[in-house]
């Protein structure tokens, strides 16, 4: 098996410390999370950024002065390509739509894609990793060959083709991404399960007659959960970036205003040659911030998981 090289935001080589889950699963879980955000200021910053965008997404209709697709008119004339002004803080698009309102509503698409893909990726990856690592044998062979195949399929081309052939909507993009992105998570979790299942508390459980499924989900899963969180938070970033790319290439949902959609609109409306930076810069900054938030949180989990790195 090759070393993981795809997600080097988590480039960690040393083995994490696994503890037997002494107290209840939930309190241990809460403690890990608390530790992540107490220890690491960047992870805390990531959490704050994400919370900010979640609030913006929820309050979008209150914050945004216009509907994102509404054409602003004055005396029956479209106000297209207006420069920033008090009524439209970031100017208007060439179809006379308010850029600021689009930016606010764009957070909804990004978070929807980011969180749903992250959940799908970490759930699939964790289950695959647990089963492959614990059972070994043919289960392992089949699941890991599936991962090899997922690694052999060109990621963005696959999503573009699938998005083009199916109805262009956000969920199809999420499904297409989840079909491939579990591969990293699955491999890493499998290799950690291989380590954990040799530990005394697992053998003890087996000797005392616990069923396989009970061992997997009650004993092993809690120990690798932070690792699923690590890959989940990275997946938030990857999926938001991917959705933006797909929308930018024109295969996104035409009825959903996402930040990628805004950039595509700007690109196709000659915003570049006009030097309309108030249109080009903000959506990219928002994408970058949300993706970085995911990376920061991922690094936080990593530092708790791989304490060796912290010392360095």
């Amino acid at each position, binding site marked *: 098996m090759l070393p993981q090289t795809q997600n080097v935001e988590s480039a960690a080589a040393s083995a994490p410390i696994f503890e037997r889950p002494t107290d209840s699963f939930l309190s241990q879980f809460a403690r890990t999370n608390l530790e992540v955000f107490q220890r690491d200021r960047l992870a805390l910053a990531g959490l704050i950024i994400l919370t900010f965008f979640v609030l913006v997404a929820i309050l979008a209709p209150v914050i945004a002065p216009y509907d994102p697709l509404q054409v602003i008119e004055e005396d029956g004339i479209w106000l297209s390509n207006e420069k920033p002004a008090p009524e439209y803080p970031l100017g208007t698009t060439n179809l006379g739509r308010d850029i600021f309102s689009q930016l606010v509503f764009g957070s909804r698409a990004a978070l929807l894609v980011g969180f749903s893909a992250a959940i799908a990726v970490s759930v699939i990856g964790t289950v695959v990793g647990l089963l492959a690592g614990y059972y070994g044998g043919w289960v392992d062979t089949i699941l890991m060959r599936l991962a090899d195949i997922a*690694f052999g399929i060109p990621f963005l081309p696959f999503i573009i083709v699938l998005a083009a052939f199916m109805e262009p909507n956000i969920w199809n993009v999420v499904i297409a991404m989840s079909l491939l992105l579990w591969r990293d998570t699955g491999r890493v979790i499998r290799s950690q399960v291989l380590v954990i299942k040799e530990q005394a508390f697992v053998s003890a459980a087996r000797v005392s007659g616990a069923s396989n499924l009970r061992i997997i989900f009650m004993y092993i899963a809690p120990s690798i959960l932070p690792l699923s969180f690590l890959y989940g938070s990275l997946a938030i970033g990857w999926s938001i970036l991917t959705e933006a790319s797909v929308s930018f290439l024109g295969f996104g949902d035409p009825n959903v205003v996402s930040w990628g959609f805004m*950039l595509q609109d700007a690109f196709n409306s000659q915003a570049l040659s006009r030097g309309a930076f108030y249109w080009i810069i903000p959506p990219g900054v928002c994408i970058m911030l949300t993706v970085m938030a995911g990376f920061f949180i991922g690094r936080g989990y990593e530092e708790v998981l791989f304490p060796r790195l912290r010392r360095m």
Partner: protein
Amino acid sequence: MRRGLWLYIGGRLLQSLLVLWVVVTILFLLFRLAPGNPLTAYIDTTFGEEQQTALMARFGLDRPLHEQYLIYLGNLLRGDLGDSFRYGGTVVDQIMEVLPNTLYLTLTSLVAAYLVGVIGGIFMAARRGTRTEKVGIIFTLMTRAAPEFWIGMILLAVFAFKLRWFPSSGTAAAGTIYSSEIEKLLSPDFWQHMILPTFTLALYLHGLPLLLMRSNMLEVMDQDFITMGRLAGYSERRLMIRHAARNALLPVMTALTLGVGYSIGGNVVIENVFAWPGLGRLLVRAVTTSDYPLAQGAFFIIAVIIVILNFFADVVYGLLDPRVGSSDQAKAS
């Protein structure tokens, strides 16, 4: 050479072929999803009757699905990817025309990115715990978090449209036709067109080797042989560059091999921002214009490149890691 190593390489080769076969099968089924009747994957409505019948026979489109599949595999083995709907000529010709552009862009960017990344990673490791390192890491994470096409757009707006230092699209000034690839590579105009897309791609790609190199360096600097060196009185600088960096470099090289494959597949976005006539742009245009044979062909070539390079990465890994193919192989896998 170790006998076990040959077994390992042979095993990986078989496995790669298996992966390729499954990917090709997925591709076959995927393009049966194309809107319209299944024949749309090969036959455009604008084709004449005769051409249609000829194509039907060539791809066996009048036969049941499983026979079509066998014919499809046979055609792939013979290198026949069909004809393009929009641009005329065979898909293979179309792909061969743009493939060099993708390779120039990808390879130049990768070399630049890995040089900067490796040196940057050593530098970061040397500055561990300092403010410089913290700022540097945040900057690197920013380059990985920013959408590549957005960086490209900003560079275009500033350097191509505002300052007019660089051209905004394509590989050559309008009207230029190169008679050969050599002539293209010797033309200063071509390189001027290359600068912005290469910089954009390299900026994105440098993060991976940098972060990898940094963490490998920190790992290696902790090992006994470095401590021994320290006791022997070697300078920290000498230890880092002559001893640690060599060891830390190996995983980065594996990443580079994988990186070639992934960036050829991922170049799609950058090629579209800069209207760079490569494989990724060809794919997007083919999908947009429902040129299914061309889209399928471009996808196939990208997949082949990825699978081949994944295989090379495995081989490089096997050659570099002495545990592979030796008696305790189990530990290495």
